[in-house]
């Protein structure tokens, strides 16, 4: 998305529209202002007299010589199951409202609707290349042909789908191209899903058609009676109506009623599939994997509910290559297919390989897995896996009850995989990233209560608010406050400590009371009810802060001279184009810890950009003055309070603490506010050496997660900074 999109006046017009009944979609054409780029997924919203359609649309563009450089023609195909909507009143193209031409109204006029469709179809031919073009063409061309009837149907819980039998006329059968799509219309809605379809001979049709048997994977959810079934393949669709004597077969009788029919249908892979579906065993709570003719060894160590991202499973599996055809997560009658291609991470599990694996004759060390099932949202009740072998046999694996949530769940997930080099993209894009993002969102959804304690008289109308989060080393507060105090921190400075380490609340309050007695510098201590991490802790401080300037300071940053706050603030006062300013930070030996941040792509982590402290470890800069930087560290940064409120503080999407500082600098930059380091202000910043190999796997993977969030957000900005203006 371009950064300046909202600043350009956007125009456009819908010149014609109509509903494509056979494809259950809405087709519109017209023109819009030219854009540098379009988002990959464009959502359109169409307000009609009798309803609103809002959906991801297929959109193709074509040149319009009449508009020149100003506009571009478009054709949009929008899934819309509702018919008889009346006239189109308003249309939003992404975020932009565009005009509906009076001449476009044609819904009530069958002729103009047809002409709209025909016109749109013709326009597609001149559209610019687009991956969705073929699909759009198919949908636009789709038309009903032939006929068909349903004789019997019923819901089959074991296979989580509907079995339907009936017949269709030969003209549709002969038009079948490849896959068949099915939409079942019930009293209370539509059901669609994967279809397995086979034919059988119906002597009664005397060669005009054939019997069909199909299985439509879909939840039952008591949708009422079936009203019709629309089958489509390519441009051909057929609508099957109910026979007068249609039979709704109860679930328990379904196998008996359908198994012979399936056996006598045309020999084909579909018949085998249907047979396996109808003979699909019911899960009775037992692990039946051992009973499979082809060996599949599997254990699930952990099942984790990931809020809006469904369920993640951690475990291991040993089976000969190609044995496992499909794995499905099930909860009662609900069934969720697992995408074994991209939604599964294979991980090294020497513990399994060296024991069970060796005994059973497998030499695969990568037998561990993390499986993401994003569709399994809000599943309740006991979960189990259904493992289908290539031979069509089904085994069940009951799952452990999901127990972890919040940081514990995030840790468990992160500790399960070692990601390096180019693996990181796939691992974080398809499995870890979305699951962890959802776990984090869920964790932060419930606000943590904050206990505020004032020590000394509160500062009225403060100029500066200094916000210091505390975690782990609470004792740093003793040294930091001693230095603030002995250097004569101003009476207009409000100091806010935020304890993000709940088990240490009493200890910290005791220390705080003693520090106030010793130093007589007033400050506030906010204690968070739960451990939230760097960004949320600072944000809690912001909510309590009243100063014009907010200075975020780490607890291990120590002033060297008394005037640091005023000096930093003076820059923000002097230059409205400056959004954030920080000091030079020095190690204990006087060498540079921070004087601005650059970025470096690390090949061992997919060439993602990691912040690099410039001149780190070198002697302190000899020159002084204010240096503009792309980004500065959050260990000590000052911002105007109004900017913090307008553009947000640290983003809580970064977990525990990495990258939120550069993210904040880039957000300010997008609003025209720069970052700088004052080379004349130095402070000490301790950066404890991490013992080699001591960083736990989950923690280093969490850094990778944060790097992933940052990368997906700012890769283009960083590239732009590197190549220069």
């Amino acid at each position, binding site marked *: 998305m371009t950064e300046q999109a909202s600043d350009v006046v956007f125009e456009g017009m819908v010149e014609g529209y109509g509903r494509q009944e056979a494809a259950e979609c809405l087709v519109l054409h017209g023109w819009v202002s030219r854009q540098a780029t379009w988002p990959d997924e464009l959502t359109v919203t169409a307000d009609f007299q009798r309803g609103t359609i809002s959906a991801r649309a297929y959109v193709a563009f074509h040149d319009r010589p009449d508009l020149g450089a100003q506009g571009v023609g478009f054709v949009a195909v929008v899934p819309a199951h509702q018919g008889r909507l009346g006239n189109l009143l308003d249309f939003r193209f992404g975020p932009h409202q565009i005009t509906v031409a009076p001449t476009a109204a044609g819904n009530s006029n069958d002729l103009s609707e047809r002409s709209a469709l025909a016109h749109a179809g013709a326009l597609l031919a001149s559209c610019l290349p687009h991956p969705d073009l073929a699909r759009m063409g198919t949908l636009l061309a789709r038309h009903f042909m032939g006929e068909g009837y349903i004789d019997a149907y019923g819901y089959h819980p074991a296979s989580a789908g509907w079995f339907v039998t009936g017949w269709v006329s030969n003209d549709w059968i002969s038009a079948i191209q490849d896959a068949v799509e099915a939409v079942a219309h019930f009293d209370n809605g539509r059901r669609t899903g994967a279809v397995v379809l086979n034919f059988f001979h119906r002597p009664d049709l005397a060669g005009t058609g054939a019997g069909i048997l199909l299985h439509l994977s879909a939840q039952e959810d008591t949708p009422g009676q079936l009203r019709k079934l629309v089958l489509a393949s390519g441009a051909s669709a057929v609508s099957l109506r109910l026979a007068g004597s249609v039979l709704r077969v109860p679930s328990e009788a379904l196998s008996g009623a359908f198994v012979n029919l399936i056996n006598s249908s045309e020999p084909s892979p579909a018949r085998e599939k249907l047979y396996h579906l109808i003979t699909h065993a019911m899960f009775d709570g037992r692990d039946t994997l051992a009973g499979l003719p082809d060996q599949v060894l599997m254990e699930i160590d952990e099942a984790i509910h990931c809020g809006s991202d469904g369920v993640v499973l951690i475990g291991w599996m040993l089976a000969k290559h190609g044995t496992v055809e499909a794995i499905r997560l099930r909860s009662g009658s609900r069934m969720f297919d697992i995408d074994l291609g991209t939604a599964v991470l294979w991980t090294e599990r020497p513990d399994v390989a060296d024991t069970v694996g060796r005994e059973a004759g497998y030499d695969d060390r990568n037998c561990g897995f993390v499986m993401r099932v994003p569709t399994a949202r809000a599943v309740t009740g006991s979960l189990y896996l259904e493992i289908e072998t290539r031979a069509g046999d089904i085994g069940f694996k009951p799952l452990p009850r999901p127990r972890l949530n919040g940081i514990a769940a995030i840790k468990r997930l992160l500790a399960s995989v070692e990601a390096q080099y180019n693996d990181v993209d796939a691992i974080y894009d398809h499995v870890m990233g979305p699951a962890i993002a959802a776990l984090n969102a869920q964790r932060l959804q419930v606000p943590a209560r904050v206990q505020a304690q004032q020590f000394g008289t509160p500062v009225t109308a403060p100029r500066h608010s200094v916000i210091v989060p505390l975690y782990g080393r609470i004792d740093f507060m003793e040294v930091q406050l001693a230095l603030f105090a*002995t250097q004569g921190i101003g009476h207009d400075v409000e100091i806010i400590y935020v304890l993000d380490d709940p088990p240490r609340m009493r200890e910290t309050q005791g220390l705080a009371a003693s520090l106030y*007695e010793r130093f007589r510098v007033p400050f506030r201590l906010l204690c968070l009810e739960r451990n939230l991490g760097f960004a949320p802790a600072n944000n809690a401080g912001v909510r309590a802060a009243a100063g014009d300037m907010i200075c975020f300071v780490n607890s291990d940053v120590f002033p060297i001279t008394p005037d640091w706050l005023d000096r930093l603030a003076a820059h923000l006062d002097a230059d409205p184009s400056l959004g954030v300013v920080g000091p030079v930070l020095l190690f204990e030996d006087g060498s540079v810890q921070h004087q601005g941040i650059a970025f470096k792509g690390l090949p061992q982590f997919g060439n993602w950009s990691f912040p690099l402290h410039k001149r780190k470890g070198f002697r302190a800069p000899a020159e002084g003055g204010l240096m503009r930087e792309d980004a500065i560290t959050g260990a000590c940064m000052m911002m105007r309070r109004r900017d913090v409120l307008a553009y947000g503080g640290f983003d809580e999407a970064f977990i525990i603490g990495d990258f939120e500082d550069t993210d904040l600098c880039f957000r300010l930059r997008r609003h025209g506010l720069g970052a700088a380091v004052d080379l004349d202000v130095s402070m000490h910043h301790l950066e404890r050496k991490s013992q080699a190999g001591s960083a736990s796997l989950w923690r280093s993977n969490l850094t990778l997660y944060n790097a992933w969030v940052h990368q997906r957000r700012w890769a283009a900005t960083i590239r732009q900074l590197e190549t220069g203006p």
Partner: protein
Amino acid sequence: MNVVHAEPPRRRRRQESRPRLRVLVASHSHPRVTSGGAEIAAFRLFSELNARDDTEAWFLGCNTKAGAGRDGVALTQPYTDREYVYSTLGHFNWFRMANADPRLPGEIEALLLELRPDIVHLHHYVVFGMEMLWLIKRVLPQARIVVTLHEYLAICHHFGQMVKAEHFSLCDSASLDNCHKCFPDIDVSDFFIRERYLRTFFRYVDHFVAPSRFLADRYAAWGLPGERISVIENIIAPAAPFPDRPAEPAGESGPLRLGFFGQISKLKGIGVLLGCAAILARKPKARIKFEIYGDYRNQPAAFTEAFLKQLAEAGANVAYHGANVAYHGAYRQDQVDRLMRGVDAVLVPSIWWENSPVVIQEAFRNQRPVICSDIGGMAEKVRDGVDGLHFSVGSELELSNLLLRLHDDRSILGTLRRTLRPPPKAEDVVAQHLALYAQVGRVTIG
């Protein structure tokens, strides 16, 4: 704090004519609680100042024993009107010398406002905490702060001894890296902020006193302003008269008797003494006896065990003249003169630098030469060949040879007894302090 001081009328008259210098002497302990050299020296200073017409003094000591003091208050006056005791509750951080006791600042503030001392003279920053230095300046900006330094606690986290943690080898200077090597579990950055914390508060000290030049130099090398460190010896009480114990030793006929006085610990060099005794036990000629006076009960179990084993072995060294080591247990301060007069020389074999060991001055006041390690404060206070004799620190063999020489030629000790420097007189030390107070406060007294 409502203390009514009953002053004798004579003093009050003097006060009207000329204001007396008001001095609060503070120490990390109190002689009634423990009997270390520092608290005794501080208390003597207080007593001497208080006995004068031109000064008046108060004493603020500490009691760190569990259960001391009264519930709810930090300061009490358990002894006399002019003595205050801070009873601690275990808030003191020995790494950073910080005191988190929330009761103390407010009570010290009230005390300072009541006493309004011109000089606050702290014998030690421990137990009170570094923060007290700034507190004094905040409450009484006109008051001057003098700190007497005892051992090397600010410089060295290893009990302030400047001896390496691993093998007790001597350390010449602290640095973040050196200290981290002694304490690998403590990060360099922690040593860094420890130092910043200490230095931050040392800035409020107007003047430092070091009982030895050696100690002064070590603190100056660490970064305290050298021009603001004066070397003044601790006040030593005069020797008690003991008519039954002549100042002169018994003569040259008996065995050579060497006394060890003080805490029995590894750093005090008790191992050197016992090793030397074992060597001498095998010499047929040597009639040399070691008399050990002191306490070992506060020492680590491993040391105690080794000490008692060595003692037992020494008792078995009876080849020629019976056991040459006798352990007499702990002694009281009022016994020390009597006991010292029972030996020919006093042995100070410490394997750390020392500052100004009181035992050396006590030996001098009893006219006993001191045989000591050739380093630090000991070597400074005991001039080789004048006040006593030096041997290479830790060298049992060199000490053995030295003692054999003294054994064979008793005149050496006799000469030293005549040349050794007697301890400074109390009034001289007090005068040095008053001059210092006058200098820092530009106060004219007397």
